[in-house]
């Protein structure tokens, strides 16, 4: 769905060929999502035309799908307005492996604190690499994309610190699941 709206946004600027749309999409959004294939572009454009959100302005002579020029319709503009105004549901982005490892360390009688320390060092190292990369970023777009990653890793780190302060209480809760021969 996001790709459809990306294409509508690009078409709102000016009528374009599929090739131009792919170039612009890859330049602006591929780093945050992934590069898009030509086949996908044309399938989505065809769907947009069927939906009435885009139209074909003209077909130039020659073979191949990239002879059509596409434009957004009034219905497409209205739909784009509505989508850009809607908030997205917050994503908890649960890093389930971190949570699971802490729990399993406690259940198995191993040191959850040692895992948290090692994990903390790994997260800090990742934040340092990303911060140095952000200092080298030449565009605001690249810097903000790295910031997005930094804030998420920082959130994980806050959870690691918070969890360490509650390990004793968590250990007590899982005590019944611990093997009898483990402390």
């Amino acid at each position, binding site marked *: 769905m996001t790709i459809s709206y990306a294409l509508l946004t690009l078409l709102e600027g000016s009528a374009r060929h599929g090739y131009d749309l792919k170039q612009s999409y890859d330049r602006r959004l591929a780093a945050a999502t992934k590069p898009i294939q030509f086949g996908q572009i044309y399938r989505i454009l065809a769907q947009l035309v069927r939906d009435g959100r885009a139209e074909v302005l003209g077909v130039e002579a020659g073979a191949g799908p990239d002879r059509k020029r596409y434009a957004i319709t009034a219905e497409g503009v209205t739909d784009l307005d509505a989508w850009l105004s809607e908030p997205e549901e917050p994503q908890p982005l649960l890093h389930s492996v971190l949570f699971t490892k802490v729990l399993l360390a406690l259940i198995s009688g191993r040191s959850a604190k040692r895992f948290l320390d090692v994990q903390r*060092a790994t997260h*800090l190292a990742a934040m*340092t690499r990303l*911060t140095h990369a952000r200092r080298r970023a030449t565009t605001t777009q690249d810097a903000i994309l790295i910031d997005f990653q*930094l*804030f998420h*890793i920082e959130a994980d780190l806050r959870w690691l610190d918070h969890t360490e302060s509650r390990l004793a209480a968590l250990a007590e809760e899982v005590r019944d699941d611990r093997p009898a021969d483990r402390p």
Partner: protein
Amino acid sequence: MTDLLIGRDLHKSFGLIPALRGASISVAAGEIVAVMGPSGCGKSTLLHCLAGILAPDAGEVHFAGRRIDQLPDRERVQLRRTEFGFVFQFGQLVPELPAIENIALPLRLAGKNSRTALAAAAGWLRRLDLDGLGTRLPGELSGGQGQRVALARALIAHPRVVFADEPTGSLDSFAADQMMDLIVDTARENGTSVIVVTHEARVAAHADRTVVIRDGLNAIQVGAA
């Protein structure tokens, strides 16, 4: 890299409460080191012992090959004036002095005449994007502007080490990033070592190396030693 500042097996208690229980740290010339840890872990006490503000109960502090923890107060004050610079969380600027005079203060205390000190301060106003703000009092500056004045004041006498205690603690995340970029850039330009105390990973990530303190002791280190 040669170690410029070394704190070895430092112990410090306040009454019956141990703040440092054997923490050690070394900082090379031109290196930026972050000291991280939760509130109450001893990181500010460690900073104060390294800067000669506090004398440790046990352990040693060496600066430029000279032991400093046992120096008389007078000599430690002189060391702080000539070799060290300081940035604190809320700037600790003199509220009655305009920004340019706050920046010039270390040079005036070092015996420089007013004209020389103010000319140097004016250069720092330009360098840290504080043009036109030299006559403003600290209370008339934004948080980020105030911290940049504090940074200029810390650097004007070309210290060999800057001690920064939560320098971004009162700033929003964007201003904090800008402040840390400035600290790193100006330190690199001047070859100044920096020790930053912080509880925020995002601030520590600007450093060459991070030392994590827990309960007055070293816990982990991130980055090359």
